[in-house]
């Protein structure tokens, strides 16, 4: 039997992990990534240190990228899958890239097209895009990577930075009913980084509840208050105004004091939620995959078959099926790889039996 040939769409943590396991198991992997590089969203947006161990992105993802590149997987960057046709013996796909089009026959497809940041412009009360000192946390990740924490409005070092959790998450008003799972952890991590770089900057997290599940509790939440003096204010900011001196005024209720609160802040970082990426939606439409109620790809069984789909031969992993962290995305990549390999093996046994 010829070695199974599997197409992976998306070269983020999930797709890379799937590609690695497929080649390690003797399969042939074709990895198609639309950007000119591998590593996915963490690389594209220049995240700095990763939760929970505060390791640089490069340290976490570069070994994975290198080993995929050396494994013999065919990595096509700057490329997109144009069409997929399923036939009796697998799929015929057209891939375009570098001004060329190629056709490939593959036995199975793994979808790893990831997530997108929710656009905070839509929450106009927070004046993102109006006041330069209101930024979202991908902007702040970039600032941390550049090692330059300054107020965009005047280039000065802020005295007080606040994070506002759940922007575009857990909010009926914007049609997002789910938790982003990472906002708390990433905000807390960012606040710790700020305190480490410059302890003179005071940091506040405005929260409804803190969801640093599992080991992220003590590694992030506890540590931030106990070792870094990050402060927590229970209450969701309702709107952000600008004071006379150009500082931001966060209009909130301090629900512990049971008082209105209008405290001046120098910068507010919005912890924007996750939604399915455009690539995820397009790819789902192309492959005939159903979306679940939050707009992510619907797994065959969300509890027992999280990486299978209703379309035979198509598997899915990572944030394409919902918010999750890098380790979970990597684990799912491996899971999708073994499911895809088994699918091909079982099918070829059937074909042999028929012959």
């Amino acid at each position, binding site marked *: 039997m010829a070695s199974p040939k599997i197409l992976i769409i998306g070269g983020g943590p999930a797709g890379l992990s799937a590609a690695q396991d497929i080649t390690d198991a003797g399969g042939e992997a074709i990895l198609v990534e639309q950007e000119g590089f591998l590593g996915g969203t963490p690389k594209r947006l220049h995240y700095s240190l990763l939760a929970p161990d505060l390791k640089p992105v490069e340290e976490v993802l570069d070994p994975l990228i290198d080993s995929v590149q050396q494994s013999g997987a065919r990595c096509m960057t700057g490329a997109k899958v144009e069409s997929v046709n399923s036939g009796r013996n697998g799929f015929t796909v057209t891939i375009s890239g570098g001004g060329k089009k190629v056709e490939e026959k593959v036995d199975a497809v793994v979808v790893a097209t990831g997530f997108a940041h929710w656009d905070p412009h839509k929450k106009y009360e927070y004046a993102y895009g109006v006041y330069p000192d209101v930024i979202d946390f991908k902007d702040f990740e970039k600032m941390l990577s550049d090692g330059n924490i300054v107020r965009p409005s005047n280039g000065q070092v802020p005295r007080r930075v606040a994070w506002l959790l759940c922007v575009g998450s857990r909010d009926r008003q914007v049609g997002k009913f789910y938790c982003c799972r990472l906002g708390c952890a990433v905000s807390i991590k960012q606040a710790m980084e700020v305190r480490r770089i410059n302890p003179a900057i005071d940091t506040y997290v405005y929260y409804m509840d803190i969801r640093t599940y599992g080991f992220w509790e003590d590694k992030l939440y506890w540590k931030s*208050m*106990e070792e870094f*003096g990050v402060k927590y204010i229970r209450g969701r900011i309702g709107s952000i105004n600008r004071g006379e001196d150009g500082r931001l005024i966060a209009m909130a209720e*301090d629900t512990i*004091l049971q*008082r*209105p609160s209008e*405290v001046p802040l120098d910068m507010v970082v919005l912890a924007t939620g996750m939604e399915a990426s455009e690539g995820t939606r397009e790819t789902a439409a192309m492959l005939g995959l159903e979306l679940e109620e939050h707009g992510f790809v619907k797994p065959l069984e969300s509890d027992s078959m999280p990486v299978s789909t209703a379309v035979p031969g198509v598997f899915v992993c990572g944030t394409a099926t919902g918010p999750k962290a890098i380790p979970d995305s990597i684990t799912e990549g491996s899971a999708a790889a073994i499911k895809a390999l088994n699918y091909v093996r079982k099918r070829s046994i059937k074909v042999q039996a028929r012959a």
Partner: protein
Amino acid sequence: MPIHEKNLIEKEDLLEKEKAVVDGVDVSGRWNTFIRERLLSDYHEDFVEEVKSLPGGRTVTNCWQCGTCTSGCCLHTDYGLREFNPRYFIYLAQIGNVDELKKYGDVIWRCISCNKCVERCPKGVKVEEVVHNIDEVLRRRGVTEDTPGSRWDRTYLDNIMATGVLDELGLTLKYVRAEKPEDFTRGFMARMAVKIIRNGNIRTGPIRRRTRGWKKMKKVAEDILERDGYASAK
């Protein structure tokens, strides 16, 4: 207009005027009640730093406001002193809300150091020490005056600094003479003395004991106290 959440309005924030004129309009009568603004308009980070800098204060930022301490606090529950809420004092300290803390100036010092809160706090806050530090910082800043609690602390410190060993009898007599607490009648004192001498809870007698080599150790203790700003040590 009905006032919502009336329970949140504190008496001293209610202003009622016999005659009130606003922008030339006479609003006396039904409309003459005003509520002082309760807005939280700033944080004061230096307060918590000061609480932290005193011995035992480091854990003040560990608190996540769960209320375990308050729910078991003897003062809050058994003695019914509901205003004594260590959780709340800690939050006010965290955000540096001195105005609000000031209202509790005559309450915070009343902690009897049973340490139940310290035993129970899931975040390892040294609640008892932290609350004492908050009280101490308020006094150092002149927000609150001396209280029976702070005077007790000073008498205690002076007593132990004299010889290195606590002289309970001397301590009690000195304090009671100075403070004249209502409940401490002669009869009460006598009955208490008999009880605690019998059950061995008090170990001082007429002869004052001292720690061997106390002179040298005292110097070290004084230096530490001075470093931490407890001026009365010398």
